[in-house]
């Protein structure tokens, strides 16, 4: 009975409800930091880093089989040329292995061995390397023509292990020269100190 007497009219009740709803309404709590934008940037940086590291000719994986010698040079590495890699155990042209190398003692005596030479052990021309370079030269010649560079010669980037005997180095360079490669870029690692 008492309750009925206190009951207010519907408009008054609705007004009271709206008032109370407004009073109790509050901004939603930020219960997590929105870092999506920052992480988007980080994802882009990651992709950029992986791409640039993979494509750079200067990125030479260092391992026991291939450790570049150090130099005090501070110049930018040349990116132009066919990559010839001479590790402790093999020679590669680009990513293709062309020759498995004999032991170091044997290389000091007769380079890569008579069986891999054109005219016996004293010859400097390495036949398997020469064949691979001839193919690379054909491709490079077309590329140089398209780029508007002198197509009569090609360039080579030589990535050689620090322990490579001088004899083998000369054989590789001689073979390159015989295949119309007339400019070489010897890749070294930058170092602060001499030696």
């Amino acid at each position: 009975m008492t309750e009925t007497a206190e009951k207010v009219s519907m408009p008054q009740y609705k007004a009271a409800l709206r008032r109370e709803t407004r009073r109790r309404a509050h901004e939603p709590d930020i219960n997590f930091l929105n870092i999506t934008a920052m992480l988007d940037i980080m994802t882009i940086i990651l992709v950029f880093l992986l791409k640039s590291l993979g494509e750079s000719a200067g990125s030479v994986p260092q391992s026991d089989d291939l450790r570049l010698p150090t130099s005090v040079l501070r110049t930018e590495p040349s990116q132009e040329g066919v990559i010839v890699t001479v590790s402790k155990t093999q020679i590669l042209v680009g990513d293709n292995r062309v020759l498995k190398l004999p032991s170091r003692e044997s290389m000091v005596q007769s380079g890569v061995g008579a069986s891999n030479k054109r005219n016996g052990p004293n010859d400097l021309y390495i036949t398997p390397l020469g064949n691979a370079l001839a193919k690379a030269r054909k491709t490079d010649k077309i590329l140089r023509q398209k780029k508007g560079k002198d197509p009569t010669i090609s360039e080579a980037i030589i990535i050689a292990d620090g322990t490579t005997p001088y004899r083998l180095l000369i054989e590789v360079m001689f073979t390159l020269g015989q295949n119309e490669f007339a400019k070489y870029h010897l890749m070294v690692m930058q170092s602060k100190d001499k030696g």
Partner: protein
Amino acid sequence: MAKLSAAQRGKIRRLSQPKELAPDEEGGELNIVPFLDIIVNILIFVLATVAVTFTSTIETNPPAGKSAGVRSSIPQESLNLTVLIVNEGFSLKAQGGNVAPGCLGVGSGLSIGMRGSQYDYTELTKCAAKLKGSNPAYAEENQVQISANPGIPYAIVINAIDALRTTPDGRSPLFENVTFGVSK
């Protein structure tokens, strides 16, 4: 003014309660946080493991045979410096002939011996600077031919090239243009 009844007050309290969003309604976006966590971990891993090495390249031309030295330009009066790396040290040859031990004039013998078990690159630099400075006509010459015994490691050859590159104080260039010779 009329007062609200207890039932109305209860109803108002109930209805004015702020609505909680369901977990899948928060932000209205796909929850990619776990994916991004993985990406961040990969990023940190890559940055930590990739050893950034700075490389450089030494420019050179095809090697020259003993009889046919390739020299791009030979002035009338030139030093024609040739450095032969042997197991015991460096043997230098210039226009006048073999450089004597200790880099003292012309004479037979090894120009620069080993210092202990190490090649003496400091003396090689000094000797090259001395030879270049011996005649003003050699001032513009920047070409040197390097040759070595068959077993000499490539790293030693590179160190010798570095030693011949600049004067001992590192300010003036000496022989920056390198060609390789074939030792028989």
